[in-house]
């Protein structure tokens, strides 16, 4: 006897009015530029093209004015003073400068660095490189909700600890670390505290003094600014933090980052910060509501769907869900008019599924089944409804195709199966 499964025809939800395909819902990867940012940048390509370091003519002064306005706007967004903002090529460079800069500058004080396993590769791989040069690195585990255990952090600190680097908001699961408490711990012990705040700045309130943080990495293209530009906040008092430069040259940016300033992009970063600051209260409320709508639209119609990471301590626009018994890449293929990311190994260059999800204890099979949604400024309710409907339809179809779903429905415990890998 054969049981034929009807997988055809595919039921495509109707595209509602006002929804244009493809839909972009991958705002943790990058964001589209806000038109107001582009408008602010344009004069700095041709009319105000000067070198911001040219001190003796009006072309230089115009460029410098643009840069300094941007510096004020970045500083204001994070509660810093203008002298504490160093422009870089982006958050990866900022992470490198912060970590390598502290490691070199504080070498006589100690050689121990603490970070966590769920950090971005820009932090993890920088730490790994330092291990080659004689530094000792502790990679803290995280709890099942994605948060670092403060007691673990306390226990990891010793008299050789010079730096703690823990991200503000995670790029995959949007989970927010207890930054204020971590900062307090670090300052009590005289340890420099760096936070990769790439996903947080512009999305949630970030105040460097309230958080007792000494260094934060900032990126423009995650907050509707241009790619290839970012900043590093470097604390100047209580305590004064010093960095060894990694790019030497003309001594720009207080000697911490040489190289002619990328004026148009810096102007764009500044404008992006200004807009984020003005819009944040209503924007974060709107995104939280959209996120709830998306979550309900999916979870009210599908069983065995799991949220990865804390819902309480989370960025407004982030949702990371595992759809049991469905492989992430095949799911992305089925929703190819929607741009999202998956923790599946098939979508990345490595063979391992998301190391962030694995660190939560999610299990490889659910990590392979995960989708990251990143809602942003330009997403609408109509888009969210369409995405939820497409997902429900595609997951249901793929589950009909899934031997795992069939076995689970037959009551077979998948953990008890002796799998025969090829």
């Amino acid at each position, binding site marked *: 006897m054969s049981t034929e499964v009807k997988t055809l025809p595919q039921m495509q939800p109707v595209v509602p009015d006002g929804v244009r395909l493809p839909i972009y819902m991958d705002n943790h990867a990058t964001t589209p530029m806000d038109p107001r940012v582009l408008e602010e940048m344009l004069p700095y390509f041709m009319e105000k093209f000067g070198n911001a370091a040219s001190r003796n003519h009006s072309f230089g002064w115009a460029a410098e004015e643009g840069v300094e306005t941007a510096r004020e706007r970045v500083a204001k967004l994070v509660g810093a003073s203008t002298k504490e903002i160093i422009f870089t090529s982006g958050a990866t460079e900022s992470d490198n400068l912060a970590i390598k800069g502290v490691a070199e500058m504080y070498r006589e004080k100690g050689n121990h660095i603490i970070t966590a396993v769920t950090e971005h590769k820009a932090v993890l791989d920088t730490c790994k490189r330092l291990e080659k040069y004689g530094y000792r690195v502790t990679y803290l585990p995280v709890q099942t909700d994605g948060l670092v255990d403060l007691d673990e952090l306390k226990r990891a600190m010793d008299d050789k600890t010079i730096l703690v680097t823990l991200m503000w908001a995670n790029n995959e699961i949007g989970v927010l670390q207890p930054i204020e408490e971590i900062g307090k711990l670090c300052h009590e012990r005289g340890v420099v505290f760096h936070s990769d705040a790439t996903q947080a700045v512009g999305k949630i309130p970030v105040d460097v003094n309230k958080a007792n943080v000494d260094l934060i990495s900032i990126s423009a293209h995650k907050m509707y600014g241009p790619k290839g530009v970012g900043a590093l906040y470097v604390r100047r008092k209580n305590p004064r933090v010093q960095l060894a430069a990694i790019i030497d040259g003309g001594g720009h940016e207080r000697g911490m980052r040489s190289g002619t300033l990328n004026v148009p992009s810096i102007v764009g970063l500044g404008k992006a910060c200004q807009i984020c600051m003005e819009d944040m209260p209503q924007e974060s409320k709107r995104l939280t509501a959209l996120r709830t709508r998306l979550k309900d639209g999916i979870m009210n119609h599908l069983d065995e769907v799991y949220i990865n990471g804390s819902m309480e301590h989370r960025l407004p626009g982030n949702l990371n869900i595992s759809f049991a018994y*469905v492989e992430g*890449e095949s799911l992305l*293929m089925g929703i190819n008019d929607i741009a999202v990311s998956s923790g599946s190994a098939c979508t990345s260059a490595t063979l391992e599924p998301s190391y962030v999800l694995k660190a939560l204890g999610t299990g*490889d*099979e659910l990590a392979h089944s995960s989708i990251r949604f990143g809602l942003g400024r330009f997403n609408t309710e109509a888009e969210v409804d369409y995405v939820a409907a497409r997902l429900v339809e595609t997951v249901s179809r793929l589950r009909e195709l899934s031997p*795992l779903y069939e076995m689970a429905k037959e009551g077979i415990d998948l953990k008890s199966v002796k*799998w025969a890998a090829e």
Partner: protein
Amino acid sequence: MAYSDKVIDHYNHPRNVGSLDKNSAEVGTGLVGAPECGDVMKLQIKVNPQTNIIEDAKFKTFGCGSAIASSSLATEWVKGKTVDEALAIKNTEIVKELSLLR
């Protein structure tokens, strides 16, 4: 990496999805892969004991688009063949047919 049109066609219109009665004496069931590796394939064939011909084939696959397409194509190819003929099908032939290595 973009998939070939053939992979997309098998993904959108998988052939022979389903299950055969695994308790039947004429049905053989194969299950390979592991959920934690991101690929599990179940392939079943129904063999006529007199002729040794594969009269029916069904699959279910958990895996990426190319895994789904490969199993779908495999069921198409083995149907109507004798068991020995089916055993002669090489994985490289499936790779070639679906242009998986490009």
